[in-house]
């Protein structure tokens, strides 16, 4: 009789553990998809701002039109695709924007344009939001991956087919570059 009680208690504890571990994995995985949609929102926001920027800059810039076509090209690659493709296109846009703002330095009239100033503030704000969203995404992926690999949650992760997630990769020093004021 005693033995049965003990067995039942142990079984209960195990089941409770499985439920808790499973739920924590679900919470972490949901956080990742939430974090990803945050990135997506900001990418979309930047995507929408770019045509305005091109329109504003076009009137002023005479010789360096290539930076604009670069940006248009990079933008068109963002529309769809896997996460890694989006990450790559996003990095290209970041680069293209940087060179546009560098070029703008040579045009005092453009720099004084209210519309341009506002767009520049908005774009650099969006740029750092993308960086922050990516950071949150990667942090979330990291805590999920650790949980999936760590014993004993590893057993539950395997049993319910939780797979490790991919990081949103970027060049090593990109975060540092974004901090530079345009």
């Amino acid at each position: 009789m005693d033995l049965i009680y003990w067995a039942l208690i142990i079984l209960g504890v195990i089941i409770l553990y499985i439920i808790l571990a499973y739920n924590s994995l679900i919470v972490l995985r949901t956080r990742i998809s939430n974090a990803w949609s945050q990135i997506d929102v900001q990418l979309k926001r930047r995507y929408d701002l770019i045509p305005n920027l091109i329109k504003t800059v076009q009137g002023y810039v005479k010789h360096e039109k290539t930076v604009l076509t670069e940006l248009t090209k990079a933008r068109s690659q963002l529309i769809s695709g896997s996460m890694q493709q989006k990450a790559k296109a996003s990095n290209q846009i970041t680069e293209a924007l940087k060179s546009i703002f560098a070029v703008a330095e040579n045009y005092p009239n453009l720099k004084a344009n209210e519309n341009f100033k506002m767009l520049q503030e908005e774009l650099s704000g969006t740029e750092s939001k993308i960086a922050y969203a990516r950071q949150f995404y990667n942090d979330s992926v990291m805590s999920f991956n650790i949980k999936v690999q760590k014993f004993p949650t590893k057993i539950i992760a395997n049993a319910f087919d939780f797979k490790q997630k991919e990081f949103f990769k970027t060049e090593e020093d990109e975060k540092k570059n974004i901090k530079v004021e345009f």
Partner: protein
Amino acid sequence: MYSQIGINKRNTILLFIIFLIFIGIFIFLINLFFFQGHTFVIIAAVIAVIFSLISYYSGTSIVLAMTKAREANKKEHAYLINTVEGLAIAAGIPKPKVYVIPGMQINAFASGRSPKSSLVAVTEGALEKLNRQELEGVVSHEISHVKNYDIRIMLLASVLVGIIIFVSEIMLRSFLFGGLRSNDSRSGRMNLIFIVIGIVLLILAPIMAQMIKFSISRKREYLADASGALLTRYPKGLADALRKIKSDTTESKIASRSTSHLFISNPFKKKQWLVNLFNTHPMLEDRIQKLDAM
């Protein structure tokens, strides 16, 4: 950095438990020493509960009114709003409301009951005197207060301290104006000792409660510094901002004693007696040193 956050969290929970036990003992002792009947206790309790509910739910708007803060607008404060939004994304919390406080002192605070109903307020002085990295550091500190639920704990702590002050005030008054009559039936000397102990307790309790609150607040500052640095991955920004705050001598017009624990640095610059026990904030030097070591 991660381990520091862990240690701070444990310490704060411990302090909060002490606080709750303290309130429990306080109420128990009041009852033991002073009351045969319960009517008064019940009335006091009802008033205290109503009082604390009101201050808990309107605390944030009271603070805003006291500091004369106004909501930031997208046109004037684009960078501030973007920074708050960005760091909220990094912390994984909903976007707090952004306020600007008039005045040239460099300071900021966060308030609210939960990340969903939170706000971050920054002084005009901070916007003017800090560069972007420094402002980002300050905002990251405030966002961390929101994320770590410090805003709720500090709001609760203020309410709890408020209750203790309120109750002991009422007790003391009722003594001074003839409350002793109810003890006539009890026998002499022993009773007198109890009463003396009781009065001393009533006087000490609010002071001790304040000290515990300040101690919680100090721990929270270190934690917010650490997790703020984790958000920006750039501890130097906040460290530089704190250096500027340290060398800045503008006196605050907006902060009062009752709101000082909310701010990123103590709004009162002058050195005071018993600085450490009654300070809401750790010494700036100490915080800068810790950030530099990260």
